[in-house]
């Protein structure tokens, strides 16, 4: 139990905890927010959603949908890299303590 209390009060652990939760909720909020705005927006701006996208027949609404899919993939790759790096730092830090 004291082991855990030690780790919990370690400022380095706290720093990484805060960083991780910032990425976790920031990215989740960004993607879910984008999805909901795009999905609900379709009801109110349906004509604009069906309009051709930059001169090609692909409709705007679907183009934005494809962008949100692409964004999910890009942010996922970014998240994996960021957290893998943070975790590596964390392990180095822990080894220094021991």
């Amino acid at each position, binding site marked *: 139990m004291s082991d855990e209390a030690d780790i919990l009060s370690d400022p380095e*652990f706290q720093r990484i*905890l805060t960083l991780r939760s910032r990425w976790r909720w920031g990215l*989740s909020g960004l993607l879910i927010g984008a999805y909901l705005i795009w*999905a609900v927006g*379709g009801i109110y701006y349906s004509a604009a959603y069906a309009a051709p996208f930059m001169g090609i027949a692909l*409709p705007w609404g679907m183009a934005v949908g*494809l962008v949100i*899919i692409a964004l999910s*993939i890009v942010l996922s790759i970014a*998240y994996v890299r960021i957290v893998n790096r943070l975790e590596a730092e964390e392990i180095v830090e822990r080894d220094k303590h021991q």
Partner: protein
Amino acid sequence: MTGTGPNITAIAVFVAFVSLSLFITWWASKKTHSAGEFYTAGGKITGFQNGLALAGDFMSAATFLGLTGLAFIGGADAMLYTVAITVSWAFILFAFADRMRNLGRYTFADVVAYRLHPERMRVLAAAGTLTVAIPYLIAQMVGAGSLIETLFNIPYLGAVMIVGTLMTIYVVFGGMLATTWVQVTKAVLLLAGGTVLLVLVFARFGFSIDTLFERAGDLHPRGRGVFLPGVLYDDPISIISLGLAFICGTAGLPHVLMRFFTVPDAQQARNSIGYAVGIIGYFQAAIMIVGIGAIALLIGDGEYVDEAGRITGGANMVSIHLSRLVGGEVFFGLIAAVAFATILAVVAGILLSASAAVAHDFYARVIRKGDISDDAEVKVSRFATVVIAGVAMGLSVLFQNVNVAILSTIALAVAASVNFPAIFLALFWSGLTTRGAVAGGVTGLVVVVALIILSPTVWVNVLGNANAVFPYAYPTLFSVAAAFAVTITVSLTDRSERATTDRAGFPAQLVRSEIGEKP
């Protein structure tokens, strides 16, 4: 089908797939002895393999066949689904991957029982798993039965027997190792088949996205109106409910959560879901293009679409028809066989999660309180697998004519309203108590079932009433909100002795969930 007999390529490819899957099972059976090997392949799957398997779990026949059909019918609105699915997987990665892997061993029950009352939470988790897994299994098997009936001219009963027997063999003898490799094989086949289909469809339009969408807009009975959103759902509540069903529901599917434990550590769990998001996102985007391509190619072709604009054999046949049109008999046979293989791999994964809930969470941990040998637990799991498979097969025959969409809605909505709130609050809220989690779980279940019965899908379409009491197709906005509200309120007012223990366990859980096994 237009009167053709069984397709030789389809049968050849399918027999090859089944032979390979049985070989995999035989190979896996030699490596599957302990409970850890049975449930989670001993945690030895690599991140990339697991990514493919996870993507495979979700690229079911429902998404491959159903969503192409939905794009054909609903046009732009089908994207509400494809985008929600991709976003939901990214959310699982951000919110769940690390902490789940660090806290659990075999099932998501390990995670919710970590600091809460172990027996009560395991009963809740096992109930949540079975209420998701059984409807999901039946939905897949009923869908499989009708599909195989159409594609291979095998009677419905025979089709259900084939699917049921094969899934039982995979799980009983090969456990998670066989289930994973069958899933990986199928994911590769489906990705390859889907990609070839996409390229062939695109080639018909000179690889121009402009020509493809223009032709679809010209040919569709609604004209460019097919790209107007609001055809399937035109109110914000339905759309938010649908989004929540996928975002919270996918994160509460037991067979998906179980895959977090098949890799060695949190980093591999994270990597594997990263791969899964990439694969699923690509596949969902491809499905949309193929669906719109189907409008541009199938409409006006009397063989596949009748005068009234109805697809021969139903909307699920869109991608099958399309594969024959652009790729000929051989490619059509290949896609048909892959669709069959898809169902087999998905049901095996769901069956294994149901069996783990009964044997590990309920029998070994609650009834025997953990006092059971590894050998005995594996035996019980195998026995449970056979029983659950038998029940699912029987119910699939009984419910042959039930609307598959209702069963899938129930499965996803229960996952979102029972499993998701419990896992989410157990991981992130120190104030959660056992009493709160149980009360919230029961509330979620009751509200989901009640609202689905009162919704248009059951109240009007099944029970024949004129107007639905609950006007929305998905209950999730209300059921998830109710589950969270009850869980939080009951937890906050919980003054029991157990509640003190529950809350006091959070700091230790937090440390373990962040840094894993070795502090």
